[in-house]
């Protein structure tokens, strides 16, 4: 696994970023487009915040490659929880587009976990940190 470190594109992270941007757009649409049955409700405000946090997390992953292992691990876990929580909220809001985007983000997260170069990856960056220590 270490042989892939630093080589190739970090597709998972970038796809996660793309998915989170789309998710935030969808959440905003659900929140502010009156007449969809859920606009301006607590539920849509919740997914608006959660998708904004998801986007922030994805941006951190793309911007800061050499994070401490504990930080990247925690961030990765929080992103996963955000995806799952937003997906659950989307399911109960009947916000199927947002639910689909959360599925996409989950795939991107898995891709990031298992296929991205090590310096982007939560688990391997932690391993690298241990080695260098």
């Amino acid at each position, binding site marked *: 696994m270490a042989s892939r470190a630093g080589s190739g594109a970090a597709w998972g992270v970038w796809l996660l970023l*793309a998915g989170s*941007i789309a998710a935030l757009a969808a959440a905003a*649409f659900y929140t502010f487009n009156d007449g969809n049955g859920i606009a301006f409700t607590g539920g849509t405000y919740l997914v608006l915040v959660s998708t904004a946090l998801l986007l922030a997390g994805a941006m951190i992953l793309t911007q800061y490659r050499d994070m401490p292992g504990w930080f990247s691990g925690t961030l990765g876990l929080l992103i996963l929880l955000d995806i799952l929580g937003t997906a659950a909220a989307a399911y109960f809001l009947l916000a199927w587009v947002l639910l*689909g985007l959360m599925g996409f983000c989950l795939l991107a997260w898995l891709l990031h976990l298992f296929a991205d170069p090590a310096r982007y990856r939560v688990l391997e960056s932690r391993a690298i940190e241990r080695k260098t220590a």
Partner: protein
Amino acid sequence: MTKTRLIALSTVASLALTAAMAPALAQEAGTDQPPIAGEPEDTGQGQGGTPSGPEGGADEPSGEGAGFTGETESSIDHTGADADPSRYETEATTTEPAGMGATVESGPAAGAGGRGPDAWMETPDSWATFNGDLMAQKYSPADQITPENVGNLEKVWEYHTGDVSDGSEDIPTTVWSATPLFVNDTLYIGTPFYRIIALEPATGEEKWVFDPDARLEALTQPAMKNRGVAYWQADEPQEGEACQKIVYIGTMDAKLYGVDADTGETCDGFGDGGVVDVNQWNTVNAKWPLSLLQPPTVYNDTLFLGWAGKDWTDSAAPPGTVFALDARSGELKWMFHALPNEVIERTGTANVWASMSLDPERGLLYLPISSPSPNYYGGNRLEELPLATSVTAVDTETGEVAWSRQLVHHDIWDYDTVAPPTLVDIEKDGETVPALVQTSKQGFIYVLNRETGEDVYPVEERPVPASDIEGEEASPTQPFVDTPAPVVDDDWPGVFWLADLVAFGGCSERAEGVRWEGRFTPPSLEGTIAYPPTTGGAQWGGGSVDPRTGIYVVNTNSVVQIYTLIPREEFQEEGQEGETAGFYAQGDVPYGFQLETFLNWAGMPCWNPPYGHIQAYDLKTGERLWRHPFGQVQRYGFYMPESWGSVTIGGPVITASGLIFIGASMDSRVRALSLETGEVLWQDLVEAPAVSLPAVYTYQGRQYVTFIVGGNTILLPKVSDQVVTYALPQD
């Protein structure tokens, strides 16, 4: 790949994702729709088990003035009446016993009218009354839209009246439950601001608007309410003559307006310059105006009119009356009083606030009569009040009682009879029975012979729990019905584990601390589980029937509330008077009252779902054919599982092709269901809960379904002014 390229790529990908899903988003949001085009103490002995006729306890009326001997409080102008009362001082009225303690006053227009159906109302393409027809069958013979093609239904036009308020400003929130009428090639709509709007049925374009500049104040209700308009036309309308066809709308402050159906101009010959002030007859316990929220029932040039008030604030309140007015002139034909004269110093209401039904062949008007005031304590009214909480048949020409069945004795649960009884002939045991089907808040479906009031399916008196409140004497028995099966189960649904978990055991703890001994457990000091409570059971929408098959459909609620009486000295009124929750003073009786829906701290229902159903019965056998949770509960935007169902207000309409059209649910959907199975075949998102009856009609060969989407604060704090019409695509 550079970072810049990756950022660009991810941006493009996100845009592509959003674009790809835009149609789905738009569809959910409804943005792909066409452009927009434009509310005796009763001992229980011997009552309810058999029908009572006029001989069953007539009381002598005073015969003076308005016929009442009760104290009049109308010197204080709580009523909003501003018509010149002297106009009516010359009108002699005579008061006669009407049977069962009721009285009838005959007015100057008495004797006019007749029997037999109005020909203009009989056209199969129209939806000319609140319930589609006088018999409240809510049935349309239209068959263009079928179970096979209903999935293709599309919105053909949408109209916004502008008459909507969420209560955040000067005007109280609106609760709009109107049925649109289609008649005279026009769609007529009444609004919660009491305007009448005439629309072109195929396009939704405005033909005319009538604005009475009504008082927009919550005089008797916590919200601005309206359930639509009524229509009348002369048997042989004279061409070019005004007001041969009249549309009527009532207001919160008891004005009844009559306007020309073709032009929207007021009919000067109707009342005083086009308006009848019904409050002129509000002379006893006149604490508030007789709100005209339900449109009149029209038959043989006569308008039959009930009224709405508030039976939770006062003990002595305006006593229940039904008015029969001449459709042309607005003159009084007769006035029916449901309560005996002896009690009206201490009680009131027992009024008819919901729709009535009428048998045009027999000339019988069927009144769903509500409970007496105050709602939850009866120690001030221990006398027999045989017409309170009853279904009562009166003669359309005289107002005399033909028969009556009391459905709850000594009502202390606010079990108003609220739905118009459905009249239908059913084939039972080889005979054709002229039946009446009465749904109820208490969850029973009473099937009676509409000529005699006798049971078609047995109604049995059974012992019920006694009251433990000093001064209260609950009836020892109540009428029970086993067939058709009650719309709610005998026992309350029990504590919902999830709500209990969220409340850290608070739900089960509360349930253990309150009284529950089955149906009709009286209100108590420690709190009583009321199941079903005042929200029903079945609500004012009632049921619909396919007269060809005798299949009867009704939407229902499964709600648990807690009734707590509070000794007067401890009672502190907290918050505003409401309709479903809060504190109620109940006038000067020894107890105030608290009504709570059984929720945990998070607002979750503490009882097991489902919270509402739609169910079908075969009236020929009394068998329940199917029963499904209906709609979805929505909270903070989140939809709960379909298996939980929704509380429902409004009613279903059946079509000849085997469809049920219904709004009614909390989730702001309108739906079409299969009459055979109850399966949802089509649904569409609308702007708020459609708490009304849809109108189904055919115009220029095309079948339309129109829903009024007004919302109801009982269901959800969501209001709208939307009128939406669906039809199949044109070739």
